[in-house]
């Protein structure tokens, strides 16, 4: 019983200490410079004042992030299966997969805008690009790392290629896939916000948190800017929580990375 309580109390205590330090820094900065670091209370007030705007922006960003993230999951699994077929396929395609990842979002953003227009579609597409790479690298590694003896066992039993994929390589790759998924879930909301700054639009209430951050900054509403940053954090945590839950449901009863409860 003591452990779960402690695991709640510790981060709570650290959080309170952090807020106290923040407040102290705000006071220490002096009248002239306080605008650089709004007090925690002011940020909270700004979040309340702008809650309708922030909520709408957060939902817009969440929509783009989820669309791009979901698309990345589907496409990366298909591409990983393709890449796992042979080292030659990997050698031929890896440089180009990396090239996509090497191109910074702000450079890709205008290209996306030319193709599909500013707004949701562009945000989803750019999120897809950023979430795709960790998923495909990890899943492919998982698909080609199957225990050699298990592969031989399946061959001895006359397994067909699709049986090997569905009953052996696929499940064996799950822990790798979830590693990729956790990275993707962390960077997808960030990608969506950056994409929104570079390829977003406010037309028809379509602006997301990135767009909103640009607006607040230009209006010198610094407390509101901090509140926007907090909203992006919440979004990232929410997506991560969902992924951790799905990973737990899929792995906890057999994978060594989860503690055994039957000891």
């Amino acid at each position, binding site marked *: 019983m003591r452990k779960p309580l402690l695991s709640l109390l510790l981060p709570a205590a650290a959080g309170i200490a952090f807020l106290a330090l923040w407040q102290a820094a705000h006071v220490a900065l002096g009248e002239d410079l306080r605008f650089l670091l709004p007090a925690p209370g002011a940020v909270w007030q700004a979040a309340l004042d702008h809650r309708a705007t922030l909520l709408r922006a957060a939902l817009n960003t969440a929509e783009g992030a989820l669309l791009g993230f979901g698309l990345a999951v589907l496409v990366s699994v298909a591409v990983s299966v393709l890449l796992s077929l042979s080292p030659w396929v990997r050698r031929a395609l890896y440089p180009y997969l990396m090239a996509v990842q090497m191109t910074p979002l702000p450079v890709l953003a205008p290209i996306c805008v030319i193709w599909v227009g500013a707004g949701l579609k562009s945000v989803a597409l750019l999120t897809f690009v950023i979430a795709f790479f960790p998923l495909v690298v990890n899943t492919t590694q998982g698909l080609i790392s199957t225990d050699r003896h298990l592969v031989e066992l399946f061959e001895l039993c006359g397994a067909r290629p699709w049986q090997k994929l569905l009953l052996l390589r696929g499940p*064996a790759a799950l822990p790798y896939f979830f590693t990729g998924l956790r990275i993707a879930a962390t960077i997808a909301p960030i990608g969506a916000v950056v994409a929104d700054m570079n390829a977003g639009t406010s037309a028809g209430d379509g602006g997301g948190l990135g767009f909103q951050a640009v607006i607040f900054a230009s209006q010198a509403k610094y407390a509101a800017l901090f509140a926007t940053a907090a909203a992006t954090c919440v979004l990232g945590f929410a997506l991560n929580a969902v992924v951790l839950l799905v990973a737990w449901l899929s792995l906890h009863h057999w994978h060594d990375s989860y503690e055994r409860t039957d000891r």
Partner: protein
Amino acid sequence: MSAPIPVEFRDVAKRFGDGPPVLQGINLAARAGDLIALIGPSGCGKSTLLRLVAGLSPVTEGQVTVDGRSPGEAAGELAFVFQEATLLPWLTVAGNVEVPLRLRGVPAAQRAEARRRVLELVRLGDRADAYPRQLSGGQKMRVSLARALVVSPRILLLDEPFGALDEMTREHLNEELLGIREATGWTAFFVTHSVAEAVFLANRVVVMAATPGRIHAEIAIPLPYPRTPDTRLSREYLELVAQVSRVLRSVEATAGTTPP
């Protein structure tokens, strides 16, 4: 016409790529019901020999036949037990045992029946719902054995299956394996590093030499079945262990020297 020989090697040689021969001049025929132990220094190709029978690796020269057919054609007749238990960690014991039947498209009801039968054989009937990580090393190996037996193989290939287990567990499993053999009846090749295990299990012990892997001697083990823990205390058993040990030592003494 008499029944085909379960497993036969005729002038078999095996090389990997352009490398030196791993096996050379192998001539060996298993009779139905034989339990042949393969023993020899590391690198003598005893595991490779099993892999040739299983069709996991092609022969370079000569011929291996299983029931008069090529190993690939006879794959349905045989089962392989690996050095490690090699279970699928995401499946329960029941799921693991049923894998070979699932891959062959056996309907679920039949699968469950066959699985219950073999889990009783290896005394794990009550652990069907456990996951591999909840089992001890000996239990995992029993599941691996059950998975091999579930297809009712006529030929069983065991590649040092109990090598990683402690002495006590190994002896228990040896006795159980012989008990299962009484009940099911198959022809088996058993690779081992333990002279005691070879003599206790087998009716024929084949001692192999290395570089290149070849058959050095064959020693018949005329101890009657069923063999029990008391067998290990009998004079005949101890003499046979001593005899096989001497032959094995003579092989190991010459290991590394080039053959004539």
